[in-house]
């Protein structure tokens, strides 16, 4: 008798075989069945999938996807002094990269000037140091701000950096209306995962919303928030948690802006996302597809958004830094290639591919080139860009997409019940969920349930021989001297007055961005603006949940 259902096949045919003694689960530990069939895909084509460029955008936000335009290849770069990073920017643009992406050092990210004692040993280490508008000018020297879109990965001090970027544009004759780019500025995920903050969550959210409102009115081509799952995942979350917490963060930003009286369709088209691309290929493709469908439905149903652009989840993605190994580092090239493929099958709009040496230090020029070439090979040699959403309709991918959406919506329901993401963060809910998942994964790795090649399997005795980028400690001293000189020479009366106006706006509730732009024109620094936040809003302390 012929097999007619999946159940029959499992019971009669499949059970004759012997499975390898491993746990068949995704990287995030969702159990995976041996086979998916039409029985596993319950949604109706038109409502669950639809066509590319059409609601609910499961198959892609644009009608032509990569046939119309390839994704933006955007490698994240930044180290040393502004001049060093400027040289790397020119190198990357010369290699065919389309957009810039700036990595700042820890002092800049945390709102300390280079000459602050807390900056000791960290100036120019993990990224470029930008203390004042002069550094911003050096960073974008000979780069046409009106033509190249720039992404800036910065959060708690983002308001100061956005102001500097806009003032730099204005000083080079580019009107704000023409400035395009993205600033990460996702403070909620800072409290959840990346942990760069100045003041507590509520005032942090207010500053973000000030920037959303300001950009909608003054710099309409700029993306004021990049709602980021990347750091949540890198901190150890599962793929479902990444999806759920990120969408929940997005809902919180939209709600806050709407509560302030903004029309959702005036700002939502400029919200963008940022996902992690991890090693479990199908899980990642499913996550990206599920995210688009969820956002479209939530924006329509919860906020009544009407502009199709408000419903489209457009996203940057980066391969998973956490998946790279210090052991046998050349293997990382393969990991990055597979992860980047998931990004392409998942329909991302821009992508950063990590360099093989990034577990050891910031990447060398050679390693960055291989990473960029990986994207170019996928785009131009493999033929994968010919067909839109080529995995759509795969029983396994559709079943997994449905599953991820269902599980993520359950998390969002819980967060709604707590009163939204701001409240959930106060109780440590997402933080603890992530720590738990990270610990579980580490245990599974040590028990051999999960494999990382070269780490817990196929190890070889080795000395790491690849070349790594070294940052000369002299750079820190040079930057400190430069900042001190600038502070001595500027008009200190004007600086004090500008800072007073920023403080006043903190108290009155007036939008902070105009006074901050005025301040950076007067050579007020990142640290000084952050100090106003510290004084006016208080300093957030890590509750240190383990």
């Amino acid at each position: 008798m012929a097999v007619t259902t999946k159940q029959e096949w499992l019971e009669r045919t499949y059970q004759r075989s012997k499975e390898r003694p491993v746990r068949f689960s995704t990287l995030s530990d969702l159990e995976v069945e041996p086979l998916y069939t039409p029985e596993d895909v319950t949604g109706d084509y038109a409502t669950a999938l639809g066509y590319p460029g059409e609601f609910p955008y499961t198959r892609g936000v644009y009608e032509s996807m990569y046939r119309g335009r390839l994704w933006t290849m955007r490698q994240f770069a930044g180290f040393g002094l502004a001049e060093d990073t400027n040289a790397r920017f020119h190198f990357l643009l010369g290699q065919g990269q389309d957009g810039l992406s700036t990595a700042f050092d820890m002092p800049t990210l945390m709102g300390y000037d280079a000459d602050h004692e807390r900056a000791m040993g960290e100036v120019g280490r993990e990224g470029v140091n930008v203390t004042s508008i002069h550094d911003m000018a050096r960073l974008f020297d000979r780069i046409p701000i009106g033509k190249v879109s720039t992404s800036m990965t910065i959060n708690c001090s983002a308001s100061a950096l956005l102001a500097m970027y806009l003032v730099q544009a204005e000083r080079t004759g580019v009107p704000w209306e023409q400035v395009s780019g993205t600033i990460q500025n996702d403070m909620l995920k800072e409290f959840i995962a990346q942990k760069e903050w100045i003041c507590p969550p509520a005032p942090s959210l207010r500053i973000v919303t000030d920037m959303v409102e300001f950009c909608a009115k003054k710099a309409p081509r700029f993306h004021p928030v990049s709602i980021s799952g990347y750091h949540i995942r890198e901190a150890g979350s599962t793929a479902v948690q990444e999806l759920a917490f990120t969408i929940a963060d997005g809902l919180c930003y939209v709600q806050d802006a709407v509560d302030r009286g903004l029309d959702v369709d005036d700002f939502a088209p400029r919200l963008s996302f940022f996902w992690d691309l991890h090693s479990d290929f199908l899980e990642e493709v499913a996550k990206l597809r599920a995210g688009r469908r969820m956002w479209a439905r939530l924006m329509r149903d919860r906020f009544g958004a009407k502009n199709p652009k408000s419903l489209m989840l457009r996203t940057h993605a980066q391969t998973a830094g956490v998946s790279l190994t210090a052991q046998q580092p050349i293997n990382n090239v393969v990991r990055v290639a597979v992860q980047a493929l998931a990004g392409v099958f998942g329909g991302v709009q821009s992508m950063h591919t990590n360099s093989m040496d990034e577990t050891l230090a910031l990447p060398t020029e050679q390693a960055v080139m291989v990473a960029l070439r990986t994207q170019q090979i996928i785009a131009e040699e493999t033929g994968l860009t010919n067909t839109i959403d080529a995995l759509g309709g795969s029983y396994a991918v559709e079943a997994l997409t449905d599953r991820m959406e269902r599980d993520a919506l359950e998390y969002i329901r819980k967060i709604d019940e707590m009163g939204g993401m701001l409240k959930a963060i106060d109780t440590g809910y997402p933080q603890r969920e992530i720590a738990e998942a990270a610990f579980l994964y580490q245990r599974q790795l040590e028990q051999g349930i999960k494999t990382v090649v070269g780490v817990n399997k196929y190890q070889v005795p080795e000395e790491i021989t690849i070349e790594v980028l070294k940052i000369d400690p002299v750079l820190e001293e040079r930057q400190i001297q430069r900042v001190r000189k600038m502070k001595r020479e500027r008009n200190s009366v004007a600086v004090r007055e500008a800072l007073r106006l920023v403080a006043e706006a903190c108290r009155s509730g007036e939008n902070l961005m105009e006074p901050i732009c005025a301040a950076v024109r007067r050579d007020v620094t990142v640290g000084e603006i952050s100090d106003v936040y510290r004084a006016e809003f208080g300093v957030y302390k890590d509750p240190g949940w383990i």
Partner: protein
Amino acid sequence: MAKPGLDGHDRGAKIIARALRDGGFEVIYTGLHQTPEMIVEAAVQEDVDAVGLSILSGAHMTLFPEVIRLLKEKGAGDVAVFGGGIIPDEDSAKLKTLGVSEVFTPGASTEDIVKWVREKVQPRQ
């Protein structure tokens, strides 16, 4: 267990803190963004036997020696200092000559670290 410096990479520190706690040790986790002064103050106040530092920002050559110097200054030079993070081999060797007891790098298992603490850290007199 302490996180000096400005970076927020606390995944490792939290996992190690939890593994040590599960291994029967009393663990105090400082939370993020600690200065060497804050760490040493906590170590002295809590009368700890060892300080574990997790550093992933590249500032290890500044922060490890500073913690050791301050511990000595406070009369707690016998507190073992160990750590982990993205620390190149040559820096790791240099840190050991500067008084760091052990440096764990990517791939070290929690089991190895717990075992090392159990065997190598002496309770202070």
